[in-house]
């Protein structure tokens, strides 16, 4: 079974179809819409706003912990942090951030980016995490910008 089954939900809830601005290809529209549908009133977007801004906070904390773990060369912690942020970014449909977090999770397990082939060289894994961490921060900055604009703050 895939972990990324996507489809247009045909039975949108009674709030009606949500019209979304273009969020670019960093955000999976279907997943994010699912969150938006949980808002009581479209204008306020109180629930989704709290989730999104809660995520910003979580992401920044996690990146900091990742930086620290990288300094320590602590692959196991990096992997579990990657997994942690993968979960919440996936929930929001932040595809690129999620993919990068998954890579960090795999590198931290001393595997290749797909998680299929072992990579026993810890230094190499750390180097890859370092590169991915730079990339994921950029990806995060991009979605943060888009989402902040969306929420008008």
């Amino acid at each position, binding site marked *: *079974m895939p972990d990324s089954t996507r489809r247009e*939900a*045909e039975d949108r809830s009674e709030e009606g179809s949500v019209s979304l601005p273009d969020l670019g290809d960093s955000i999976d529209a279907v997943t994010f819409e*699912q969150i938006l549908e949980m808002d009581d009133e479209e204008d306020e977007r109180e629930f989704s706003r709290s*989730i999104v801004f809660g995520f910003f906070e979580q992401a920044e904390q996690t990146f900091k912990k990742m930086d620290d773990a990288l300094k320590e060369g602590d692959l196991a912690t990096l992997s*579990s942090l990657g997994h942690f942020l993968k*979960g919440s970014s996936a929930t929001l*449909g932040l595809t690129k951030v999620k993919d990068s977090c998954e890579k960090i999770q795999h590198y931290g397990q001393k595997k290749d980016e797909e998680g299929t082939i072992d990579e026993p060289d810890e230094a190499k894994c750390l180097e890859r995490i370092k590169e991915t961490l730079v990339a994921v921060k950029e990806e995060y900055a991009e979605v943060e910008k888009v989402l902040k604009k969306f929420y008008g703050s």
Partner: protein
Amino acid sequence: MFASTPLDSTFDIQNFTAHNMMTSGEVASNSTNPGSGSRSIDEAFAAFTPIPSVLLDAAFRIIQVSASFLALNHLTLDECLGSNVYDLVRSRTLVPGPTALRLVVDSAIAARNVYATSEQQATGRCHANLRAVPIFEGNELLYVLLEVQDTTAEHESRCAVNDQLDRNDTYRVLVDTVKDYAIFMLDTQGNVRTWNSGAQLLKGYKPEEIIGKHFSVFYGEDDIIFEKPRKELEICLRDGKVEDEGWRYKKDGSKFWANVTITCVTRNGVHIGFSKVTRDLTERKAAESQVVAAYEESAKLKSAFLANTSHEIRTPLHGMLSALTLLMDTSLTPEQRELGTMMEESGSILLQVINDILDYSKLSSGIFSISSDTAVSIPNLITSIVRSIQTTVKPGVSLATSLDLNLPTTAFGDPLRYRQVVQNLITNAVKFTESGSIDVHASLVEEDETSFTIRTEITDTGIGIEDIAIGSLFNPFTQFDTSATKRYKGTGLGLSICKSLAELMGGAIGFHPNPKEQGSVFWFTAKLGKINTLNRVDRLSAKFEASVLSPAPDSLELVRELAPGKRVLLAEDNFINQKVMLMMLKGLGFANVDIAMNGAEAVDRAKRKPLFYDLILMDISMPVLDGVGAAIQIREAGIDVPIIAMTANALKEDVASYLAQGMNDYVPKPVDRQILLKAFLRWLR
């Protein structure tokens, strides 16, 4: 003075009483007096000296002769005494001849000293020489003593020495010309004593540089630290021989992969050293590791390729099928519904094909593993499989199950794989049976202290198997229906996978025609381990089965009807996901949702109120105790609330292990509401 005729070995000198070496005048009296007591020194000497001797006077007449001499030359006393020695030699053609004899005698007299002929071959293997001892008184020659000296023993030992020399020379040439092997000798202490050209070529030392040095110079530091050279010699002394492979070092410091044989060398039972033969296997080693690396590389590529391909194909296919399921939930015209059904059928066949190919490639590469420590209830398993297939049976066909009462309620095995085989066989029967019946029968055929052997038999009244196809039935890519129209679809891998699986489960698989009518009987056996603890499994294994979905028209409405009053426990550590899940559950009408921040908390809550929750949603990766660990503990506490795993690790193997360890179902992350709805419908109704 020694005969060329063979010496009679039985000749007994003690019985040769010819009272020898006596003067001519004494012959008569002494010949009658063989006793030893009254014998003169001369007589005793003549009779018993082991050296064949003749005493000549100055005119070379024989005046005394020893018994041993007479025996040696087959002469009698009378023939000798008084005769001129040259006449005797000439007349009896003794060896050496008169010329040589004269030379010895004359030389001895001239030198006034002992003189001997060179060694001569006497009879057979015997060798001897003749020695002349001149006896002077002043300048006057009184006597000449001739003695035959038997040098056979010395000769033989010298021959042996010569032979050895020859042999050593030969081998030395052989050894020296060997260029590919270092062959050399060590003394008992391990110091190098010889050095062949192969050794020089291989190790780079010249003989003068290395001879006398200890052989440990060829070893690396690690080996020296572990005292490998010393240990090798010890083992060699004990066992006579030692063989080793490892890195050895040349004079220039470069290393090579060596095969070394050290043999203990002894001579006459005394240990004199060791022989050492070293071969350079670097190239072979390199070739070997290249082959291994190439193989590993290709295996990796293959597995990566398979993983990628399957992912690439399955993901869109699942998307398509899920969308199709949703489409089928809408109101469709009968034509649209029929087309949709066709798409669903083809899609699920395609999915099966992809799964089969993946399984087959895993089975054929031997990386397929089977678990034997999951508790499984065969009766429940079979009942649930039959139930799930029931809906696909053609009208007019009955599908029935009969289970022997002696079947164990639970045993250790691999429920997933067992299910796969049973399902495959029943599905085949359903596919090929247009009317009549399909009977599934399971029985216990064998039992010992640790295991059950269970036989499952599927009898149908379908088209049966043509005789010609029976032999190749379980070969991969074999299909019964090769007609152009191909009514029956598939890869032809199913039965071959079943065969491998049955064998992996310690059993066998087979076919025979339906004995009563047209149709087939497929059976397989599997060995399952016995278990003593009969706790959680019975209730659970039946619930493992995610039944085939027959989607209701509106899952959302159904769930909303079910939700009020249901109590759900959500175990999730990431608060973002927590909040989203909570909201989603709230939207579906669940008012009673408890939160656990980790697995331990979930176990705690579940245990405190064992009958309270109707369902647990369990994240897999959580701190303190992960979801799988929590599920295990909840099951161990005897609580059989449905647990749905939530995970982004949606690999088939992962899911299988979650299910095996107590989970009932799973939804992939990020959680899609539609998938969640289906799961709720499976477990809350």
